């Protein structure tokens, strides 16, 4: 398969950046999107050009390192799929494909398609944990957890922190990311003691990190590779109101 790929090139945070077109030829339909970029980079290197910088690591959809805007859609056209798990068989021979980095105020561009998502870590630092120092744990079966709660907590906990939700949101909001963690921990009995402070502190941290507010556009859940549902934002809001009342 052959493609005309236009890639966002930006040498660093100070550069304005621009789209640059490349012809990428002879790509197997079984190649992943990142393998297509590998082929492009091998060619650029041998031609003496600067290869395209992009983040990736596990290439099996779980580390959350990769993430590209492909034709304007975070992680591209396939639902519930990370960029690394998107295969070229989902495109047509000869397609023009635009590739851009996540664009959000809280995720500044480092180089080309690489952005800084450190702001996500700062939200977790504010309260995305259960305080349980090593060694202090009771026997695991001391507290049974209803299966429905455990399953729901697991679903929320599958968030990979890729940032597609933020990139897709017209406001650059991290609400789905925060809601996933608040829900994961808030659904478990172990998470109850810090439930109120957690939601208040994490919301404060996401505001401080430069993420926008949530206006329920729902774009986040549409692009989420793990299908984190929008209902978790409602859950977060309920927790938040309750915590405010108590505080």
């Amino acid at each position: 398969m052959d493609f005309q790929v236009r890639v966002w090139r930006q040498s660093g945070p100070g550069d304005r950046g621009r789209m640059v077109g490349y012809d990428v030829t002879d790509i197997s339909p079984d190649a992943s999107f990142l393998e297509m970029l590998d082929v492009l980079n091998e060619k650029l290197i041998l031609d003496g050009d600067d290869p395209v910088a992009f983040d990736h690591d596990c290439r099996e959809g779980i580390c959350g390192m990769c993430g590209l805007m492909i034709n304007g859609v975070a992680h591209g056209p396939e639902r519930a799929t990370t960029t690394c798990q998107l295969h070229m068989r989902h495109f047509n021979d000869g397609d023009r494909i635009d590739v851009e980095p996540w664009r959000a105020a809280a995720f500044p561009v480092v180089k080309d398609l690489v952005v800084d998502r450190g702001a996500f870590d700062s939200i977790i630092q504010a309260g995305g944990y259960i305080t349980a120092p090593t060694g202090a744990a009771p026997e695991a079966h001391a507290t049974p957890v209803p299966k429905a709660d455990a399953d729901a907590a697991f679903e929320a906990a599958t968030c990979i922190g890729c940032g597609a939700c933020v990139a897709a949101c017209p406001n650059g909001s991290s609400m789905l990311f925060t809601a996933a963690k608040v829900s994961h921990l808030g659904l478990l009995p172990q998470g109850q003691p810090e439930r109120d402070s957690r939601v208040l502190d994490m919301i404060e941290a996401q505001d401080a990190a430069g993420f926008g507010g949530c206006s329920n556009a729902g774009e986040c859940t549409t692009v989420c590779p793990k299908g984190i549902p929008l209902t978790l934002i409602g859950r977060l809001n309920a927790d938040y109101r309750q915590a405010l009342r108590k505080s």
Partner: protein
Amino acid sequence: MDLDERDLYELGGEIRDAAAPDGPIETRWERRQFATKLVNPANRRKLTVIVVGTGLAGGSAAATLAEAGYRVRSYCYQDSPRRAHSIAAQGGINAAKNYRNDGDSVYRLFYDTVKGGDFRAREANVYRLAQLSVNIIDQCVAQGVPFAREYGGLLDNRSFGGAQVSRTFYARGQTGQQLLLGAYQAMERQIAAGAIEMNSRHEMLELIVVAGRARGIVVRDLVTGEITTDFADAVVLASGGYGNVFFLSTNAKGCNVTASWRAHRKGALFANPCYTQIHPTCIPESGTHQSKLTLMSESLRNDGRVWVPRVSGDSRKPGDIPEDERDYYLERIYPSFGNLVPRDIASRAAKNVCDEGRGVGPGGLGVYLDFADAIERLGRASVEEKYGNLFEMYQRITGEDPYLVPMRIYPAVHYTMGGLWVDYDLQSTIPGLFVIGEANFSDHGANRLGASALMQGLADGYFVLPNTINDYLAAGPFEKVDAASPDVVGARAAVQERLDRLLAIDGDRTVDSFHRELGHLMWEYCGMERTAEGLTKAIGLIRGLRDEFWARVKVPGTGEQLNQNLEKAGRVADFFELAELMCIDALHRRESAGGHFRAESQTPDGEALRHDDDFSYVAAWAYGEKPTLHREPLDFTYVHPSTRSYK
């Protein structure tokens, strides 16, 4: 080129694990902890520990050391500590809780692990691992790890290869992710408290040894390219395994041996480098563009049945092949363990049937993993509940629906049992350098059982290291490191020179092209089956390719920017050196054990044949012009080495 094995390495003296207590195995860990010196909480604030890597071992160690009051500085090459490759572990974590009342115990987990490792691991370490396994589950549940549960609200378990009890705890097919997020969140809590300073997008490129002690590291900021030094009272390497020497593996693309290899060059012994685990259930290669291989969790073998056509060259679709023309070869050869034989055995069996021409799919390099019986027996919903995300992943990659057509699987490099040599305290041969998780060699012998990597990483990080490191740190704080000392200046200059040299070659081949070729060589000659002839040939080829690399590699850009090819080039340069040592180790071990199969050493029916009289030792290699072999004899007083049988 003709190479004589005797010219490839020197023989050194025997070594012993001086930190290991003797006496009854049940109380060794307790006695070691009691004998360990303690550090008073007020003094811990004055002591700094560097932790390299933020996977299960590094993340849990950093969090626990910080909770104890030490000052911790943590490093990872990813953009966040949450992304370390432990996150990709799918199947589960073993623990001897015996919640199923099926006869499990600490002793049985210990026994299974020593046997699974083909009697090439230390008894004392493995026993401690089995003891701590139960604490890990408690700890993770307290942190909010959402393990799978039954309707009564209690934890669910499943079976894994190499065991006849059900002791594996899991969170669907994402157990590693959930455990890692637990450790990551504990870390982030300490980062917020100011107890851990986190440096992501930084790569350790050299170890700093001063007056015989590990005192710091040289790191490169991967965004700015700046080279800096960091000093501490102790250094902990939790930098993972070296499976990417094969280029294609189930490891993340960034996984590398550099931190371990740099420490090895500075004097840390490297143990059993030839013990690599080839995982039986991976998605087969689809073409030359392939950049990595994807694992399908071993847990699939609980319900999936492995088969190939009975006769070679049968090109019918799987559904058209009648039951009596299929060979469920694992069930046939190993009736008591069936599809749940350990990984090394399942992988080699797959290779054998493919070598016979009975492989399926493109190139004949694949076998079927069939869920038709399970779907009929349990119903599709139940199969989906257990394995849904794995089935989706398979379909996404191959474009085939495994609910309708059997999966095609083939073995791929997955885990490395070898690593830096450590004693019972997890301290390397360089005082003050501790090595934990996959980066060390200690607990899995020649073959790791499924669901044991997560157990070992977390045992090391949450429970072992935070106790044993006190014994070393009790003698600190050590004298302040002089940044102008020759040891520091030299280490830093060596890093700079190497980077400059890589950038200056400006040749005509890319880093990846060399890495692919090296990987192909290793798979061919140091993969699932090894021979003296092949290994000797490989060493010559590796040397030639390494010289070519240093003459022809082309690394674009400069060192003062984000330069992903420069990062790769440094890692591949170290893989070349490691590859040679792996082949030498494999060549010297003229027996088959676990993941190391020497064609010259097999039973009449093709099973691995150990030679306990000659090779019941850990091979610990010292770096040098020629590597020097130090043997650590292995004693078995509890589990008597026998021929491993799963029949």
